[in-house]
């Protein structure tokens, strides 16, 4: 298949998917095309959007690909959609989320130990917002539930995958400075 045609097909599929579309999903629709070709089409498509200065961009997020608006247009969009930014997470919830993101899978008692303060209401908030999910049980006394971050976490924080998080050692420099 020609690259230009493949690019258009991929564009249409990324456009209609209501959540980031995964490479495997594209492969399932395009069985005759190799994974490398699909990836090449995605990357070239993203480059085309950048090159023509579109208000939209094609990018990889949460293990999939999606089309979204560029941040610089948010004022016009808010004015049209009459949508206020959603409430920010409290410092306690953010800190708990940071600990879970870096130490996952982690249990509630382990989080308590790290924070030195009870975190159950923060954890409830994070579960309600679907930012964290249970990730099995720890094989120790009481078999407590372990938690980890969700796909929604990657989407809301604009991450391709967890490896895109800066390493916790990078914050060490901040600590020692």
């Amino acid at each position, binding site marked *: 298949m020609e690259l230009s045609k493949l690019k258009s097909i991929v564009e249409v599929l990324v456009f*209609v998917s209501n959540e980031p579309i995964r490479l495997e999903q594209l492969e399932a629709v395009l069985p005759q095309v190799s994974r490398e070709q699909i990836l090449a089409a995605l990357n070239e498509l993203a480059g085309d959007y950048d090159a023509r200065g579109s208000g939209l961009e094609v990018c990889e997020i949460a293990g999939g690909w999606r089309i979204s608006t560029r941040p610089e247009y948010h004022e016009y969009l808010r004015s049209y959609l009459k949508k206020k930014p959603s409430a*920010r997470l409290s410092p306690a919830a953010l800190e708990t989320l940071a600990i879970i*993101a870096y130490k996952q899978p982690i249990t509630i008692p382990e989080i308590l130990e790290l*924070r030195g303060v009870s975190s159950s209401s923060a954890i409830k908030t994070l579960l309600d917002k679907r930012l964290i999910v249970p990730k099995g049980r720890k094989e120790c006394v009481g078999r407590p539930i372990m938690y980890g971050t969700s796909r929604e976490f990657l989407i809301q*924080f604009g991450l391709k995958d967890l490896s895109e998080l800066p390493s916790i050692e990078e914050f060490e420099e*901040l600590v020692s400075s």
Partner: protein
Amino acid sequence: MSEVAYQIKLDVFEGPLDLLLYLIQKDKIDICDIPISHVTEQYLEHIRLLQDLDMEAAGEFLLMAATLIHIKSKMLLPTTKEGKAEEPDPRSELVQQLSEHKKFKAAAEMLLLRSVVQQEVFTRASLENDEKNTEVAATVIDLIEAFKRVLDRRKTSPVIEIALEEMSLEQKIEQIKTMFVSTDRVNLTQLFDACSSKRELVVTLLAVLELAKEDVIALLQEVHFGVIYALKR
């Protein structure tokens, strides 16, 4: 600084580690070489104003106070020559905890910045055929919430909620003062044993400390490790 200003500040602290970090940064102290008695003093001065915080948090702040005092006492103990090389610095665990806390605070700020940027990004509105489709990609949490909804619906008999009687610090102080109408000596062990919850225990402890500070009562321990009595002044 006025008391009010202190109280506003205490609300800002997420927990004992946060307060400790604030004290250290305020005096530009090296995190690896904390002058423990200075910091302990400052810490205690701050938590003296804790009474308006909720009791669970107060307990956590008190626990840290106990840790600080413990470290301070360990540092005062003379160490033998041989022992000195092997004994770890009593502060090391706390230093470790503080630097971890500091790192995660920085990581939390990074997350905040990322989320602010993402809030400015919009995706396509749902197409008509997604809207008709109310199906959700379910997680374990959705599953348990759905099960709980079923159980809640099943509760046919109305449940009578009995509010736990929670005594405030002021009420507890009044209660202890009333005891001294009929006696001039209260056994603190018995007083604490009578507490029915962790919260009540913390309130009672704070009330006794407050009364002692106000010189309403004196604390007396007749023998080492013996029972402590509160005496009417």
